[in-house]
Protein backbone atom coordinates (compact mmCIF):
# COMPACT_ATOMS: atom_id res chain seq x y z
CA UNK A 1 0.00 0.00 0.00
CA UNK A 2 1.18 3.48 -0.79
CA UNK A 3 0.15 6.86 0.47
CA UNK A 4 1.33 10.33 -0.44
CA UNK A 5 0.98 13.60 1.46
CA UNK A 6 2.16 17.18 0.99
CA UNK A 7 3.70 19.41 3.65
CA UNK A 8 3.72 23.20 3.29
CA UNK A 9 6.82 24.86 4.73
CA UNK A 10 6.02 27.49 7.36
CA UNK A 11 2.44 26.25 7.85
CA UNK A 12 2.78 25.83 11.61
CA UNK A 13 -0.92 25.35 12.32
CA UNK A 14 -0.98 22.23 10.12
CA UNK A 15 2.27 20.70 11.37
CA UNK A 16 1.35 17.20 12.47
CA UNK A 17 -1.63 16.60 10.20
CA UNK A 18 0.31 14.05 8.10
CA UNK A 19 1.44 12.12 11.21
CA UNK A 20 -2.14 12.26 12.50
CA UNK A 21 -3.50 10.82 9.21
CA UNK A 22 -0.87 8.07 9.21
CA UNK A 23 -1.70 7.21 12.82
CA UNK A 24 -5.33 6.63 11.80
CA UNK A 25 -4.26 4.50 8.81
CA UNK A 26 -2.01 2.33 11.00
CA UNK A 27 -4.84 1.84 13.48
CA UNK A 28 -7.15 0.69 10.66
CA UNK A 29 -4.45 -1.72 9.48
CA UNK A 30 -4.18 -3.16 13.01
CA UNK A 31 -0.46 -2.44 13.20
CA UNK A 32 1.02 -3.22 16.64
CA UNK A 33 0.41 -0.19 18.87
CA UNK A 34 4.03 0.18 20.04
CA UNK A 35 5.33 -0.05 16.47
CA UNK A 36 2.72 2.41 15.25
CA UNK A 37 3.65 4.88 17.99
CA UNK A 38 7.34 4.80 16.98
CA UNK A 39 6.40 5.42 13.35
CA UNK A 40 4.11 8.37 14.05
CA UNK A 41 6.52 10.02 16.50
CA UNK A 42 9.40 9.79 14.00
CA UNK A 43 7.12 11.07 11.24
CA UNK A 44 5.79 13.92 13.39
CA UNK A 45 9.32 15.12 14.26
CA UNK A 46 10.28 14.90 10.57
CA UNK A 47 7.14 16.76 9.56
CA UNK A 48 7.88 19.54 12.05
CA UNK A 49 11.38 19.76 10.55
CA UNK A 50 9.97 20.30 7.05
CA UNK A 51 7.50 22.93 8.30
CA UNK A 52 10.27 24.63 10.29
CA UNK A 53 13.08 24.61 7.73
CA UNK A 54 11.87 23.86 4.18
CA UNK A 55 9.62 25.50 1.59
CA UNK A 56 7.64 22.35 0.83
CA UNK A 57 7.85 18.61 1.19
CA UNK A 58 6.34 15.35 -0.03
CA UNK A 59 5.79 12.37 2.28
CA UNK A 60 5.51 8.94 0.69
CA UNK A 61 4.50 5.93 2.77
CA UNK A 62 5.03 2.42 1.49
CA UNK A 63 3.71 -0.48 3.57
CA UNK A 64 4.28 -4.16 2.89
CA UNK A 65 3.87 -7.21 5.13
CA UNK A 66 7.26 -6.75 6.71
CA UNK A 67 7.96 -3.05 7.03
CA UNK A 68 6.83 0.52 6.60
CA UNK A 69 9.01 2.92 4.65
CA UNK A 70 8.57 6.68 4.96
CA UNK A 71 10.33 8.90 2.44
CA UNK A 72 10.27 12.65 2.95
CA UNK A 73 11.66 14.81 0.18
CA UNK A 74 11.77 18.54 0.72
CA UNK A 75 12.73 21.62 -1.21
CA UNK A 76 14.66 23.81 1.17
CA UNK A 77 18.04 24.98 2.36
CA UNK A 78 19.29 21.44 2.96
CA UNK A 79 21.60 20.33 5.77
CA UNK A 80 25.26 21.30 5.22
CA UNK A 81 26.65 19.01 7.95
CA UNK A 82 24.44 15.99 8.66
CA UNK A 83 26.58 14.47 11.49
CA UNK A 84 26.49 17.86 13.24
CA UNK A 85 22.70 18.09 12.77
CA UNK A 86 22.34 14.61 14.31
CA UNK A 87 24.01 15.78 17.53
CA UNK A 88 21.50 16.18 20.33
CA UNK A 89 21.27 19.86 21.26
CA UNK A 90 22.38 21.24 17.89
CA UNK A 91 19.67 23.39 16.35
CA UNK A 92 19.25 26.10 13.72
CA UNK A 93 15.56 26.60 14.54
CA UNK A 94 13.93 30.02 14.47
CA UNK A 95 12.30 31.64 17.52
CA UNK A 96 8.93 30.77 15.93
CA UNK A 97 9.82 27.06 16.00
CA UNK A 98 10.92 27.32 19.62
CA UNK A 99 7.58 28.93 20.48
CA UNK A 100 5.93 25.77 19.13
CA UNK A 101 7.80 23.70 21.71
CA UNK A 102 10.49 22.41 19.36
CA UNK A 103 13.91 23.63 18.23
CA UNK A 104 15.98 22.19 21.07
CA UNK A 105 18.02 20.03 18.72
CA UNK A 106 16.32 16.76 19.62
CA UNK A 107 14.30 16.10 16.48
CA UNK A 108 16.78 14.00 14.53
CA UNK A 109 17.82 11.94 17.56
CA UNK A 110 14.14 11.34 18.35
CA UNK A 111 13.65 10.21 14.75
CA UNK A 112 16.67 7.91 14.90
CA UNK A 113 15.46 6.28 18.10
CA UNK A 114 12.00 5.65 16.67
CA UNK A 115 12.88 3.94 13.39
CA UNK A 116 14.97 0.89 12.55
CA UNK A 117 16.84 2.33 9.57
CA UNK A 118 17.40 6.04 8.94
CA UNK A 119 19.03 7.47 5.83
CA UNK A 120 19.43 11.22 5.38
CA UNK A 121 20.89 12.78 2.26
CA UNK A 122 20.95 16.47 1.53
CA UNK A 123 22.07 18.93 -1.06
CA UNK A 124 22.67 22.34 0.50
CA UNK A 125 20.61 24.94 -1.32
CA UNK A 126 18.29 22.32 -2.86
CA UNK A 127 16.73 20.12 -0.20
CA UNK A 128 16.82 17.07 2.03
CA UNK A 129 15.71 13.49 1.62
CA UNK A 130 14.88 11.43 4.71
CA UNK A 131 14.15 7.71 4.52
CA UNK A 132 12.86 5.94 7.63
CA UNK A 133 12.20 2.22 7.72
CA UNK A 134 10.40 0.50 10.58
CA UNK A 135 9.75 -3.23 10.83
CA UNK A 136 6.15 -4.00 11.64
CA UNK A 137 6.71 -6.99 13.90
CA UNK A 138 8.02 -5.74 17.26
CA UNK A 139 10.57 -8.61 17.44
CA UNK A 140 11.97 -7.98 13.94
CA UNK A 141 14.14 -5.06 15.09
Amino acid at each position, binding site marked *: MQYRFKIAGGD*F*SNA*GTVASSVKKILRQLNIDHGVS*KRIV*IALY*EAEVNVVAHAYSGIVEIDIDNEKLRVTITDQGPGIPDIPKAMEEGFSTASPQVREM*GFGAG*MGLSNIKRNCDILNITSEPGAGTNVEMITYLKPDAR
Partner: protein
Amino acid sequence: MTIKEIAERINGRVICGEEKLSEVIEFAFSSDLMSDVLKVDRENILLITGLANLQTIRTSEMSDINCIVFARNKKINSEILSLAEENGMVLIECPHSVFKISGELYNAGINPLY
Protein backbone atom coordinates in the same frame (compact mmCIF):
# COMPACT_ATOMS: atom_id res chain seq x y z
CA MET B 1 -6.22 9.93 41.47
CA THR B 2 -9.11 10.60 39.17
CA ILE B 3 -8.89 13.52 36.76
CA LYS B 4 -11.70 15.18 38.72
CA GLU B 5 -9.65 14.97 41.95
CA ILE B 6 -6.59 16.30 40.11
CA ALA B 7 -8.52 19.31 38.79
CA GLU B 8 -9.92 20.09 42.25
CA ARG B 9 -6.53 19.73 43.96
CA ILE B 10 -4.90 22.36 41.69
CA ASN B 11 -7.91 24.71 41.41
CA GLY B 12 -8.09 23.84 37.74
CA ARG B 13 -10.96 24.50 35.37
CA VAL B 14 -11.93 21.64 33.07
CA ILE B 15 -12.35 23.04 29.53
CA CYS B 16 -13.32 19.86 27.72
CA GLY B 17 -13.54 16.10 28.17
CA GLU B 18 -15.90 16.19 31.19
CA GLU B 19 -17.04 12.65 30.36
CA LYS B 20 -13.56 11.34 31.26
CA LEU B 21 -13.24 12.90 34.72
CA SER B 22 -13.55 9.56 36.48
CA GLU B 23 -10.48 8.13 34.67
CA VAL B 24 -7.51 7.43 36.93
CA ILE B 25 -4.05 8.96 36.37
CA GLU B 26 -0.97 7.53 38.08
CA PHE B 27 1.93 9.34 36.39
CA ALA B 28 2.62 12.92 35.30
CA PHE B 29 5.28 14.71 33.28
CA SER B 30 5.95 18.47 33.24
CA SER B 31 7.51 20.03 30.14
CA ASP B 32 7.28 22.95 27.74
CA LEU B 33 9.53 21.14 25.27
CA MET B 34 7.47 18.90 23.03
CA SER B 35 10.46 16.84 21.86
CA ASP B 36 10.92 15.78 25.49
CA VAL B 37 7.25 14.81 25.69
CA LEU B 38 7.69 12.69 22.54
CA LYS B 39 10.43 10.73 24.33
CA VAL B 40 8.04 9.56 27.05
CA ASP B 41 7.19 5.92 26.50
CA ARG B 42 4.56 5.46 29.21
CA GLU B 43 0.94 6.03 28.23
CA ASN B 44 -2.03 7.43 30.07
CA ILE B 45 0.04 10.10 31.78
CA LEU B 46 -0.90 13.65 32.72
CA LEU B 47 1.00 16.38 30.88
CA ILE B 48 1.61 19.62 32.80
CA THR B 49 2.76 22.42 30.50
CA GLY B 50 2.85 26.16 30.00
CA LEU B 51 2.80 25.76 26.22
CA ALA B 52 -0.70 26.41 24.91
CA ASN B 53 -0.69 25.89 21.18
CA LEU B 54 -1.76 23.36 18.56
CA GLN B 55 1.53 21.47 18.81
CA THR B 56 0.81 20.68 22.47
CA ILE B 57 -2.29 18.84 21.29
CA ARG B 58 -0.59 17.23 18.28
CA THR B 59 2.30 16.04 20.46
CA SER B 60 -0.15 14.59 22.99
CA GLU B 61 -2.03 12.86 20.18
CA MET B 62 1.17 11.16 18.95
CA SER B 63 2.17 10.26 22.52
CA ASP B 64 -1.27 8.91 23.52
CA ILE B 65 -1.62 11.50 26.27
CA ASN B 66 -5.29 12.20 26.99
CA CYS B 67 -5.14 14.76 29.79
CA ILE B 68 -3.29 18.09 29.78
CA VAL B 69 -3.02 20.77 32.47
CA PHE B 70 -2.15 24.25 31.16
CA ALA B 71 -0.25 26.13 33.85
CA ARG B 72 0.33 29.87 34.44
CA ASN B 73 -3.22 30.74 33.36
CA LYS B 74 -2.56 29.98 29.70
CA LYS B 75 -5.78 30.25 27.73
CA ILE B 76 -7.05 27.65 25.31
CA ASN B 77 -8.24 29.12 22.01
CA SER B 78 -11.01 27.64 19.87
CA GLU B 79 -8.57 25.99 17.43
CA ILE B 80 -6.80 24.15 20.26
CA LEU B 81 -10.12 23.22 21.84
CA SER B 82 -11.51 21.80 18.64
CA LEU B 83 -8.43 19.63 17.96
CA ALA B 84 -8.48 18.37 21.57
CA GLU B 85 -12.18 17.50 21.34
CA GLU B 86 -11.57 15.68 18.07
CA ASN B 87 -8.98 13.56 19.91
CA GLY B 88 -11.14 13.00 23.01
CA MET B 89 -8.78 14.79 25.39
CA VAL B 90 -9.36 16.42 28.76
CA LEU B 91 -7.96 19.97 28.96
CA ILE B 92 -7.60 21.77 32.29
CA GLU B 93 -6.67 25.45 32.71
CA CYS B 94 -4.89 26.30 35.94
CA PRO B 95 -3.69 29.61 37.42
CA HIS B 96 -0.66 28.08 39.18
CA SER B 97 2.91 27.62 37.95
CA VAL B 98 4.19 24.32 36.59
CA PHE B 99 6.30 24.03 39.77
CA LYS B 100 3.34 24.45 42.11
CA ILE B 101 1.05 22.12 40.15
CA SER B 102 3.78 19.48 40.01
CA GLY B 103 4.45 19.82 43.75
CA GLU B 104 0.77 19.59 44.68
CA LEU B 105 0.19 16.50 42.57
CA TYR B 106 3.43 14.84 43.71
CA ASN B 107 2.32 15.33 47.30
CA ALA B 108 -1.06 13.87 46.42
CA GLY B 109 0.58 10.67 45.19
CA ILE B 110 0.97 11.16 41.44
CA ASN B 111 4.23 9.50 40.36
CA PRO B 112 7.08 11.01 38.34
CA LEU B 113 8.32 9.23 35.22
CA TYR B 114 12.03 9.53 35.88
